[in-house]
Each structure stands twice: as structure tokens, then as C-alpha cells.
């Protein structure tokens, strides 16, 4: 796990440790200060997750960060949430890249570039949602209404993906 790991794997592990930390501490300047205990738990969990990218700890750490922000933010839409989204997405991409093979497998540069592009593309969704939310703020529209609309669009994408016609479904082995 540690011995024999490639240099590119160590870089991805570093991203996995920094990603949740950035997502948690991004609002420090804007007055969103997480408790020290939470910082320690997230960092320790991120360290464990960096060594075991397929482990449930990655999901738990990301979930903790999301939950903490759920407690902090109410109806406001600060720009820092884009940084939080970027931090979480970077963690997810790094964990995904690490899960392609054992630590002895060096990162294929083309695969790395592909996932950087994918991460940026996915982050654009956060930017779009943020811009839409900022535009609609103060227009008198019930917040739950547009929130439900945005959520419905994303959920529709998930449902569409899962219910798309799959020719190989049920094929006996």
C-alpha cells in the first residue's frame, strides 16, 4: 500500500487529503469556521481514505463536509460554495483515479487529463446552479420552488441514466 506506490499515486493521495480540507476550511475567511474536532476527524479520515480509495471512509468524509455546510448555510448562496464543490469534486476524482488499479500502477497521463476535464465539466454544473440561484435571488420566487426545480433536473438526469435501455441486461453468463 505504501511501499512500491508510484509518484503519481502519491500526488493523488495528497489531493485526497487536501480536497476535504479545502472544502471544509474554504469559508474560514467568510466566518464559517469549523470546530477543531471536526477538522481533525476529517483530516484523519482523509489520510485513511488516501491509502484506501475504495473504502467507505471517502464517502463518510465527504458526507461529513456536506453535512457541516448544511448546518452552516441557510438561504444564503455565498461564492465559497463553489470552492467547496471544487474541493469535494477534486477528492472524488482523485479517489476514482486511484481506484483504477493497485498503488503500483502509475497514472496514465491521458487518463489523468481526461478526468481533470471531466471534473472541470462537472464543476461547471455547480457554477450554473450557483449563477441561476444568484439570478433568481430576490425575484420573489419561493426558494423551495426553484430549488425543487433544480433538484428535479439533476434527479431526472440520474433516473434517465439508470432507466436507459440496456441491451446486456439479464444476459445469462
Amino acid at each position: 500500500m505504501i511501499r512500491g506506490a508510484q509518484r503519481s499515486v502519491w500526488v493523488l493521495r495528497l489531493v485526497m487529503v487536501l480536497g476535504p480540507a479545502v472544502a471544509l476550511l474554504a469559508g474560514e475567511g467568510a466566518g464559517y469556521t469549523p470546530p477543531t474536532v471536526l477538522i481533525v476527524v476529517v483530516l484523519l479520515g482523509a489520510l485513511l481514505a488516501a491509502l484506501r480509495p475504495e473504502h467507505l471512509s471517502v464517502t463518510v468524509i465527504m458526507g461529513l463536509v456536506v453535512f457541516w455546510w448544511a448546518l452552516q448555510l441557510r438561504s444564503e448562496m455565498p461564492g465559497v460554495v463553489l470552492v467547496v464543490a471544487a474541493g469535494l469534486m477534486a477528492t472524488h476524482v482523485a479517489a476514482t483515479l486511484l481506484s483504477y488499479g493497485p498503488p503500483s500502477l502509475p497514472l496514465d497521463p491521458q487518463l489523468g487529463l481526461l478526468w481533470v476535464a471531466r471534473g472541470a465539466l462537472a464543476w461547471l454544473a455547480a457554477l450554473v446552479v450557483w449563477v441561476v440561484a444568484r439570478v433568481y435571488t430576490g425575484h420573489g420566487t419561493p426558494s423551495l420552488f426553484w430549488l425543487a426545480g433544480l433538484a428535479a433536473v439533476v434527479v431526472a438526469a440520474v433516473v434517465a441514466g439508470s432507466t436507459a435501455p440496456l441491451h446486456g441486461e439479464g444476459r445469462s453468463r
Partner: protein
Amino acid sequence: MIDAGSRWQLTGSLGRALAVGGVGLALALAIGRPALVVVVAPLVVAGALGLVHKPTHEPMVYASLAHLQLHEGQGTRSRLQATGTEDVEHVARVASPQPYIAVHPHEGALGHLLRPGEGVAPLEISPRRWGRRLVGAEKVALTSAWAGYRWGPTPLVGREMSVLPTLTHFRAGGEAPQPIGLIGAHRSRRDGDGTEFSSIRAFHPGDRLRRINWRVSLKEGSLHVESTRAEEDAAVLLIVDALADYGMSGGVESTDSSLDVTVRAAAALADQYVGGGDRVSLRVLSPGGEYVGYGTGTRHLRRILILLSNVRPGVPRDVAIDQIDFRTTAGTVVVVISPMLSEPLATATVRLARRGLPVIVIDPLPAGTIPSVHPDVDDEVADLAWRMRLLDRSHLLARLASSGCPVVPWNGPRTLEEILRRLARRGQVPRVGGGAG
């Protein structure tokens, strides 16, 4: 090396994206946190795209080796042929670590994007030591686009291969002490149809006209011909001591154990003599008791090399070494490759020499060899025991030398050249008695 047992499964990456994204959305809706939608939107998109790219084709993978037999140090390629890869975006191959098998890339891990029309990159494999080796065992994992689904990692069993000892091609200039066959490259003691000049003598009926030396004939006034030495083959018996393996083997171009030197020396000598047209036999002293009778030619050499690659060290249980019938005939050159740490083998060697056969002992024990011992054994005791064995060995070697068996350390295929020349000269000296059995 076909696998059809795996199936596509949801990856941890997709599960994480859906779980965190779903929980974030649910929280956003449940407690009215619009900013959470922004936070989890990239994960939801990644999860959705992973689901959309759910594979519909079941792949089949098949790994094949470019060569089925190799010499140690040679290399081959393991190619992965795959069908049903329409949904595959990335392929990862990880070779199972095997003793004395080197793999390139380093650590045997290889992964790349699979582009349409392009094959999977091969793994380069090189066995580093002779013997039966499992080559080509690996695990393969295929991943769909957006890392939503993974097929495997699924193990592909390798192929057990006879890795032949390395050969140093060398054709000896030395002559056999007592060549007795009909054909071959060794100079005979009698005249015949060879190429090497022997003498000029008076013409006899039956001599070929092209042999007439006209200058001498004119000078002497009668016909004289140039006679040549006949060329004959020799019988060579290689006795390989595989009773034990002393020292650590690091594979080819690294540290050698005594059995490494033994097997490589036997292979080199077999190649040398078979290539020279001699009849070569091989007897291995091991639990398997491997034996190849006298023969010549490329196929015979291959038989010897395959048998050498299958040697496993150990003491034969069903036969006493000093009672073995080595099936020697008169004139057979006997080469015993042994560290001479066995008293019965030394006795058997002396017995062969006393039958009048030219016997040479090749010492394969590398200098400074320290045998591996059980971890529970005290190092000092083991060291003392080993020194006592080496002392016994030096007595045995001295006894062999005094019995007329030259003992030489293995120093490549030229090792026997000078010894054989000396034995040939000794063989030309008339003597009384001697025989073979």
C-alpha cells in the same frame, strides 16, 4: 487463459457520487438549503453520467504468450485479446508476482485508455532462472466510461513453462581422449578420411588419386600420398549432482547457487558436444532420477535441456548413489558436475575412473557460498557445520585428484579444453590393462 466468469459491477466511485450527491440533494430539499445543491451538483452529474454509460456488452478476455519455451534471460510478450469491449474505456493489467519472473513495466502493472481499433498494450515477461515457471498469470480489470462500472479484477491463470538454462555457444578445439565412433569432429588416432594432415607415405592400392603428392613422388621416384587422420565422434556422459542446492540464486546475470552453475554447465557442455557431433547422455542424481540416453542432434539437445529445466534438488530415496549403473561404454568421457559434498558420489566417481574411463569433475560451488539454514538453527553452529563439510569436501577432492580425476571449477564452456587435451595426450601413451563397464 480465458476468463468469462466476471461481470460488470458498480464501482465505489459511482456509489460515492450517488450517495453523497443524493444525501446532499435530500438535505437541500428537506431542510431548505439551496447552497447544498451547488456543493453536490458536480457529484450528481458525475454519478448520472456513470449510470448513463452502463455497459451493455459482456467482455471476454484471453491472454496469450508469444513464445511457449524460453531460455532464462530471454523475454516474451503476453498479449491480451479482448472481445465485447465496446463499453470499455480503461484496461488495467497487473501481473501476479512469481519467483524469478521479471515483468515490464515495473511491478507488472499496466493501465491505459482503450481506444477503438487499438489493442491492449502487452506485458513483457522474462524468466530469470531455469526451471518450471508459471508465466503470464495476471489480473485484468476493465472500467466503463466515467468509472461507473468495473469488470473484474479477474485472474487469468498463467502457463507453466519449462525455462531452459541459458546457453553459451562455443565449439571446443579440444579433442576427446578416446574417440570411438564413426563420424564426428574429433581427431582419431588412426588414419582415415579426415582433413587433418597425418603423414606422407608410399602409395597403396585403393588410395585416392587426388591424395598423391606429386612433388614427393617425383623426388622419390615412386608414388607417394598424403594421409590424413580420421575424424570420429565421442560419447560423453554428463552426471549432474542435484542432491542439494547450496547458496542463494538471484537468477541469470545475478548471484548463482551451486545448482544454477551445475545446470548451466551441463547445458553448455551438452550444447558444445552435441554441436560437435558427439553422442551425449545425461544422468541427474535427484529424486526424479532423470536420464537421457546417448544421442545426438538438435532434438536430442532439446530433450536434455528440457530435462535439465525440470530438475528439482533432493536425495534419491529408492537407489544408492554408489550402486547406480551409469551405462558407460569404453571411451566414454565422463563429466561429473558436482560440488562433491556427497561421499557416495565421490566413491562412484573414483570407481568410474578406475575402469579406465576419462573422468573429469567440475566443481560448481561458487566461492563464498553460505547455505541457507532453518531460522531456528544457531548461526555459529551452522557456520561451524558448514566449515566441517567444506573440510570433508577438500579431502574428497584431493582423493579424486589422486585417483586420476581432474577437478576444475566451472569457468564457462572452455573449462574442459585444456583438461581434455591433457587426457588425450595421456590416452595416447601405451599402457597395460584398462577397460570399461
